[in-house]
């Protein structure tokens, strides 16, 4: 009797255990990698930001001192300003241009594959390759852009070597490399809008401009929300292109938050301070994403 009961409950346990084992067998390898290299370091980073580590040793516990230091750090404030300028120009620039390209591409015209490839190919070109190309094209003395300006009778400019223009030049280069993503996302969203909807608006006497504003744009809203968040995150994390073109120069005019963080953590070995900056950047990103989502939900 007891043997029988034990057998039954054993079998029942086996019946529950088997799906558990199968399921975990499928998900465990990826889960280990992601937990080990994302979740665990994310928690560890928070603890590191409360210490004055030097990248070799953990350092002493200093509480919120690293966060307090950030408040009085004028170089960090300048880097935040440069990053904000870049973000404010790059995000709307790439999203609006991406929308314009997608609207034109959606007219069922010829050569659509050719156009789509032209706009998207710069997106796959790495920051290192883009940097070399940009240094070549925008060279103040020998570059093609200044040669073109001169041919048009305009004065030559310094571009990446002029403190007043370097960040703007980086915005232009980033839009060149980054507009393909919004264009493709918008194009996919446009192709999802039911034709009847747009045709009905036209029949009702809607002019192109009004149909766009009151019918098409509201339909594209989820895509717009996604793109605004995605491009903002990309912009706030600008590093690669700065590293391969200006290295933060001239006169620190292109030092971004992440470039400053890199220098603090890996060149000056202030790993605790670097982690604190990274965490604040993370919180700012979350706050902006939250604000965009909250506004779009209303």
């Amino acid at each position, binding site marked *: 009797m007891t043997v029988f009961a034990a057998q039954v409950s054993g079998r029942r346990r086996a019946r529950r255990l088997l799906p558990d084992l199968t399921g975990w067998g499928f998900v465990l390898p990826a889960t280990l990698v992601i937990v080990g290299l994302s979740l665990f370091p994310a928690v560890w980073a928070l603890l590191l930001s409360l210490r004055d580590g030097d990248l070799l040793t953990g350092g002493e516990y200093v509480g919120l001192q690293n966060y307090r230091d950030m408040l009085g750090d004028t170089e960090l404030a300048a880097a935040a300003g440069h990053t904000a300028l870049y973000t404010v120009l790059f995000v709307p620039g790439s999203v609006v241009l991406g929308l314009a390209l997608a609207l034109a591409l959606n*007219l069922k015209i010829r050569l659509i594959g050719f156009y789509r490839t032209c706009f998207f190919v710069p997106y796959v070109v790495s920051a290192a390759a883009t940097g*070399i190309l940009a240094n070549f094209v925008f060279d103040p003395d020998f570059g093609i852009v200044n040669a073109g300006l001169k041919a048009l009778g305009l004065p030559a400019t310094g571009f990446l070597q002029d403190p007043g223009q370097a960040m703007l030049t980086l915005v232009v280069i980033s839009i060149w490399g980054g507009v393909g993503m919004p264009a493709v996302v918008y194009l*996919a969203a446009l192709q999802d809008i039911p034709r009847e909807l747009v045709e009905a608006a036209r029949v009702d006497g809607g002019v192109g401009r009004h149909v766009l504003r009151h019918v098409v744009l509201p339909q594209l809203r989820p895509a717009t929300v996604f793109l605004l968040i995605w491009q903002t995150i990309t912009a706030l994390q600008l590093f690669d292109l700065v590293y391969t073109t200006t290295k933060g120069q001239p006169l620190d005019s292109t030092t971004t938050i992440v470039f400053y963080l890199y220098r603090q953590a890996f060149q000056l070995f202030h790993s605790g301070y670097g982690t604190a900056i990274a965490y604040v950047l993370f919180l700012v990103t979350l706050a902006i994403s939250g604000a965009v989502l909250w506004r779009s939900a209303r």
Partner: protein
Amino acid sequence: MRRRHLAHLFLMPAALLFVAPLVWMVLTAFMPDSDINTYPPKLWPEHFTTAGFARIFTEDDYPLWLANTVIVAVAAVAGHVVLCSLAGYGFARLSFRGRGLTFGALMATIMVPTQVLMIPTFLLFKNMGLIDTLGAAIVPWLASAFGVFLMRQFFLSLPKELEEAATIDGCSRLGVFFRVVLPLARPALATLVVFTLLGAWNDLLWPLIAISSEDSYTLQLGLATFSGARHTEWSALMAGNVVAVLPLVAAFVLAQRHFVATMSFSGLKG
């Protein structure tokens, strides 16, 4: 009709402006430096030469960096294809204890930026002896939460009946997965492969931190330092660029059909 002509009037100059720098990059790679270092710069090679390519493949460590990047990219793609599709299927179709909590925890990490992770990961890898080896560049690319999410969304969109029929025919779960499900997942896998390749091939910040000896340099790290060392040897620099960019352009052109379609089921589009 008129609107379409207007569209070409806007799109054609814009498209040419976008590809012009890349076309010129390819042309410059085939010019001798004497043609390039003139003012105004020449747009078309007068003396066609492959000296720039010859130089990067014989005088520099470029072939080594290329090989390193190929190793990193192949490992990243293989890791993503196997681990993310297994996990994506597990989360989409199998029920087991702790599924919801685990999936939620993985998805939460999508929001955490690399910058937060890189300092602890550096310390972790230092303790494991991985720093300054190619392994340091490979391990973070073996799987990603985004890959798991992408594959799960795709598997959720597949009809269940196919798998049920195969299960009744006596296939094991793993058999069903490899013989029935994975062949159907080709469009999603194409997207996963392109995004992984793009990330692993072009990554600069993490190799810059984790690798310091030239033998273990990746291509991007090599290019970034190369541009300082070979300052005005533009034909070699551009040849290096062309070789570095070409595989990704090819991958994109081959896969672009698939990943415009993938954006719809993954919920990325409106």
